[in-house]
Structures are given as structure tokens and as C-alpha cells.
């Protein structure tokens, strides 16, 4: 195993990068953000044609039998472009939950569709007032296979065909096209993510076989690395755009990038990114080899990535001066994404506590 991209991953990164610049430049991201659609169907088709949704899904369930590290390479490049897709919600969270459980029926029904990108899955864990990402689910209760209650902050919920719902007695598979399921897409700070509130009122669900605690644990690991990979990509873009600007914007007769107040911030952001990138790679390696350090490595990647991204995005705004604060400039798209990403899928204190737990502190 290595911590650098293997040749296949390099090719994949190139292909996704090309797709992003050709089909989803930031102008397109902005247009999608301001539209009613959570993502652009054409871009999603392209992402699917590269095989991303099925990359980490085993062949027997219609996937490409790659590794999670392969998928993170894709997420990193999409994250660098802030591209809106259901990939994280569907192929990491929902597929990850199915794969972590023992429900062969649910796996063979849904994973092939998710792998193809034909169906979109979402994972409903969070509840109002619970900052621990699912430690004590109480908000959704099941009686005789019907579910009632509310889940919040469901990533990709509004576009999902199927929800994996964390209820008080386990994970349930809930199809969204039935009475009793109300999905409301929320207005959110981050213009590039689709987040929904899901209300279940006697919706029919199917209890998934498997140990719910183990599934949740696995999903948190996957979510942490996947999000950190996206954020790692986004940090590189913040640095790139700001560095370009620092070379062309003049002040007091010199490009602003000649001044240490500017260059040292960028050097710090870059150094922090190097640590984030290395830790994402470590976690990807641990997932691929099935190391016992997976949870530790995943949480470590996340606790570094999210704050580093917030800082890089903030510096991007600041180092662009007044322009950086305008609606027209892309900096706020990154800043919004970073601030929201810091609390998404379990906030910073939960993640630090999780890392401490996993380290046995």
C-alpha cells in the first residue's frame, strides 16, 4: 500500500478534473445553486458514466469493485469544484450503510441501482437537538413496520428514492414514493448542498438485518473520510484562486503576494492542506486494508480537514479584500460550504470526542 495515488487513481483524478472544468465550472455551480434543482442532471450523468457511484460497491452488487480510496479520489476532485451531486449521500452514506449491514435482500435490490446512479439513496440519522450524530435515536419509532417521527439535516433527502432511517430499534429502509413520507428541502447556508427534513407518519419501512451499532459506526467512518476528501479538494481550490489573485492584484507598487501578511497566510493554508491530504490518504489506506485503525484514522482526517477548510475559505475572502465579500465572487460559495461542512455529519466536538473514544483516551 502507498499513500500516493496509484496510476489508476491518477487517471481517474484527471478524468474527473476534466469533467469538472468542462461541464461544471464554478459559473455552472452557481447557476445550479440558484436554481430549484439540487444538482445538474447532465453533470450527474457524466459522473455516472465515469462509474463513480459504483466505484466502492462490490461486483456482486453491480459495482466496480474498487476501493473506498478510489471513490475518495473522485470526491476530492468534485469537492475541488464544489460540484453538486448526490454521490456522498447515495454512494457513501446510503450504500455504506447497506454494505455494513447483513441484509442481502436490500443489498441486491438497491446497491445495483445506486451503483448505476439510477436510484439515489440517503441516510437519515440526525434529530433535532442532538449534536452526537445518532448516538441515541429517539425521534423515529417503529410499530409493526410502520415508522413515525422526524429526521433533520438529511443530506440528499429531497432527491432520494430510498432512505435508510435510523430508528430507535435499528436501521429501516424506507422508499420515498409512498404516503406517510414528507420530505422538505430546507433553505440552507451552503448553496451547494441539498439538505432535507424528513417527516414520517406511518410510513412503511423494512428493518434491515445487521447490528445497528456497527452499521452506524462504519457509516460515521466512511462519512468522515469522504467529507474530508471533498474538503481537501476544496481547500486546494481556495489556495489556487487566492494565489492567482495575489499575483495579479497590485498594492503599493507590488503584487500583494509579495507581502508576508498575504504570503504567510497562504503558506499556512497550504501546510495545513498537506496535513489534511496526508491524513485523508492514511484513512483511505486503512479502509482499503481493513486495518483496525480505520476509525481513528477517519476521525483524525475529519478533525483536521473541516477547520482547515474553514480557515482557507475565510482567508480566501479576506485576501481578496472587498471583492472577496461580493456576491459575484466565488469565495462565499466556499466559505458557506466550509462553515456548513464543519457541522455536517456530526460537529467538531462530537468528532474530537469520537477520536478520543477510538483512541481509548
Amino acid at each position, binding site marked *: 500500500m*502507498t*499513500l*500516493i495515488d496509484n496510476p489508476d487513481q491518477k487517471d481517474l483524478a484527471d478524468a474527473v478534473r476534466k469533467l469538472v472544468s468542462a461541464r461544471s465550472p464554478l459559473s455552472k455551480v452557481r447557476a445550479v445553486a440558484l436554481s430549484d434543482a439540487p444538482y445538474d442532471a447532465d453533470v450527474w450523468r457524466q459522473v455516472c458514466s465515469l462509474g463513480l457511484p459504483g466505484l466502492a460497491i462490490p461486483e456482486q452488487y453491480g459495482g466496480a469493485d474498487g476501493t473506498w480510496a478510489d471513490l475518495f479520489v473522485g470526491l476530492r476532485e468534485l469537492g475541488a469544484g464544489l460540484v453538486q451531486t448526490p454521490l456522498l449521500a447515495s454512494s457513501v452514506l446510503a450504500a455504506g450503510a447497506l454494505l455494513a449491514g447483513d441484509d442481502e435482500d436490500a443489498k441486491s435490490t438497491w446497491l445495483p441501482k445506486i451503483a448505476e446512479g439510477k436510484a439515489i439513496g440517503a441516510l437519515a440519522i440526525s434529530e433535532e437537538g442532538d449534536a452526537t450524530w445518532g448516538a441515541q435515536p429517539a425521534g423515529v419509532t417503529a410499530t409493526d413496520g410502520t415508522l413515525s417521527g422526524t429526521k433533520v439535516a438529511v443530506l440528499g433527502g429531497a432527491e432520494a428514492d430510498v432512505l435508510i432511517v435510523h430508528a430507535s430499534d435499528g436501521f429501516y429502509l424506507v422508499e420515498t414514493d409512498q404516503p406517510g413520507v414528507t420530505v422538505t428541502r430546507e433553505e440552507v447556508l451552503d448553496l451547494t448542498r441539498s439538505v432535507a427534513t424528513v417527516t414520517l407518519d406511518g410510513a412503511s419501512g423494512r428493518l434491515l438485518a445487521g447490528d445497528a451499532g456497527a452499521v452506524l459506526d462504519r457509516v460515521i467512518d466512511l462519512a468522515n473520510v469522504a467529507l474530508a476528501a471533498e474538503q481537501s479538494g476544496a481547500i486546494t481550490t481556495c*489556495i489556487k484562486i487566492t*494565489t492567482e489573485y*495575489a*499575483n495579479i492584484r497590485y498594492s503599493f507598487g*507590488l*503584487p500583494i*503576494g*509579495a*507581502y*508576508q501578511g*498575504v*504570503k*504567510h497566510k*497562504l*503558506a*499556512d493554508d*497550504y*501546510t495545513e492542506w*498537506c*496535513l*489534511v*491530504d*496526508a*491524513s485523508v*490518504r*492514511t484513512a483511505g489506506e486503512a479502509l482499503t486494508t481493513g486495518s483496525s485503525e480505520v476509525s*481513528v*484514522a477517519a*476521525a*483524525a482526517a475529519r*478533525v*483536521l480537514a473541516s477547520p482547515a477548510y474553514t480557515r482557507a475559505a475565510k482567508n480566501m475572502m479576506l485576501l481578496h479584500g472587498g471583492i472577496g465579500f461580493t456576491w459575484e465572487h466565488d469565495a462565499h460559495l466556499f466559505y458557506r460550504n466550509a462553515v456548513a461542512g464543519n457541522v455536517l455529519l456530526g460537529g467538531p*466536538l462530537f468528532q*474530537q*470526542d469520537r*477520536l*478520543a473514544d477510538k*483512541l481509548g*483516551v
Partner: protein
Amino acid sequence: MPADEFRAKALAWLQEHATPFTAEAADRFAPTLDESKAFQKGLAEAGLAGITWPTEYGGQGLGEDELIAFNEVSADFLMPTGPFVIGLGMPAPTILELGTEEQKKRHIPKMLTGEEIWCQLFSEPNGGSDVASLQTTATRTETGSWLINGQKVWTSGAQFSDFGAILARTDPTVPRHAGITMFIVDMHHPGVTVRPLVVATGDAPFNEVYFDDVEVPADAVIGEVNAGWAAAVVMLRNERVTIGARGRARNNPLGFDTLREIASDVGTSDDPGVRRKLAMVYARETAAAAFGRVLHEGALSGEPIGARGSVGKLAGAEFGLWASDAAEEIVGQDIALLSGKSAKVAKMILAGPGSATAGGSNEIQRNIIAERVLGLPKDPGAADRKTPFNQLKLSK
């Protein structure tokens, strides 16, 4: 030899000859110079020194895989190799890259066996960050040898060094970077005076070194006459990689393993804030080590480390300073004691600023990263790059 086989061989040797890392062993660990020399000799004889270096100069001719394997295995042992870190980390790779065949044959094998200890004589009282402002001179004699005069400072290990790689000004009439030459200097020459400097921790790890008509032969030049800046850049790059790309050092008093142990001893480990701090210590420490691996594996596949070595150096220095603050919270009031388990932590906190400064300050590393990795414009301070040295304003 496959890396796994090499790993097993290294492990077997270390198990027999080195002290396994434990907190208590680390507390008592204070090897003498002779013990260090004997250890280095054994390491070289066992084929565990100069792992990636050419065999004709005493190296093993192996790959980065083996080097990484060795670094991983040896992290679990207390290695008394401190006196050789500078020589093997900086002058040796520079000589391998720029030195003459004669220099390589003569010095590299002895550096590997610990018979020759080396120091790096760059910094001067009037400038450390701005290395190229150096004022020590070397003037050519009629026979073609050189006479070195001047003063160096902050020279680590000069008190026990046999040789040094010194930068001296050989032409003051050209811009400062253009008139410098690097020489090999014999530290036992009668004109060399070494005076220890006591530092903030109370130790005396480095020195002032005076040169008074120290004669070195013509073949002591490393690289070309007046091209010493290029040699210095090579050596500084190696220095940052040596300092920056260390693995997760288990015996780092500010590292996760030690701090966790102390937290549980002093009874702060149930405090939520302390638990979170420890988690972050772990995350930052392991990420820095992983970044070192990324650099080395990249180099192996053809992407040179280059100026990214400064990232490793800066990240390591920042970790030390950040962990100093974290340690105050984790260790609690015992941090003020110079006795017991927290004593090493307290000393390390005190040593933090020095470690950050050694090998180039954080500001200098940031300049390097910004300019050479990110491609930002040169610092305005570089404006005097064209002025002849003898017309410059310098600190006195």
C-alpha cells in the same frame, strides 16, 4: 532484498542492540558520545546505515521502501544517533550530490560508521535567516589553498565534530549570492576555537566557532568556487527534509503517547477538554508523519520533494509550539515542576522555540513555501540581490 525481509533484519538487530521504547527507559536515556559512536558503528556494520546510498561509499544501495521500513521499525526504539543526525542529514547528501569522487570516498564511509562527526557552519552573528549575508572570508593563498577567517554561531555539535561544512565569502565585489564558496574544514585545526553557548534550557548544545587563519587545501571546496550558494541551497533543502520528515516519534515528550500517559497519571484524562486536546495531538502528530511518507513515496515515484521539505519543517515546528500549549492543559499544574514525569514535557516546552528556529525560522519556511511551492512573488527584501556585497547594508 524485499522490504519485508529488510524490515525483519532491522528489527532483529535493533531488538538485540537497542533499547525498546518505554516511557521509563526514555526518562533514563542519556547516551554518552562513546556509546553513540559504538551504536552507529554497529548499525553500519549490520547494513542499516546509508540505506539508500551507493554501495561504493559504504551505503546499502537500497530503495525508499527499505528506508521507510527502517524508519517505522526504529520508531519503537531509543536510538542514540543524535551526534550523527547533522552529518548524515545535511553535509553527507550534499557531498554525495556535489562532492568530488575523492571527497565521497574519503568521508561518506566514515560518516556512516560514526568515525567522523560533522557540523554545519552557516549561521553568523550578523545573520542566520539571511545566510547569504555571511561575512566569514576565505582568501586564496599562493599555493592554491585557502585561509578562512571569521566567526560562526549557533553551530550544533561543534564541540565534538571532526569536520564542518562551512560557507565563506570568496568574492565581496559581486552580489552576495555570487561570491560564496562551501568548504570542508577540519575542526581539529589549531586555528579553530569552539566556545559553548548555554541556551534557554540550561544545556549547551551549540557553540560559537572562531576561525583564525584556518588553512584548507584547494580540494576542500564542495562544488565550485563562488558557487557555494547552490551548494548551500542543496544542503538547506536536505536539512529541512531531515528535520521535517521524521516519523511519529514515540519518545517525543510532547507526543500523544507520552501526554496521554501523563494525563492519566495526574488525573486529567477524564476532563472533556483534555480528551479533545489529546485527540488533536494525535491527529496532528500522525498527519505530520503521514505527510513525510507522502513526500518520500512521491520522491520514489519521481516527484522530487523540493521546497515541500519546508512544509514538513514548518508543520513539525508548529506542532511543537502548538503541543506546548496543549500540554499545559493536559498536564495541568505539574507542568511547572522540573521533577517527575512531566519534567521532560516542561523541558520540551522550553526547547520549542529553539527547535522551531533551528534550520530556518517559521517565517523563512513560509517564504519558501509561498514563493517556491505556490509561486508567489519574491519578498521585497530580495531587492538587494543585484547589489555587490561590499556595498550592502548589514547588521552589525
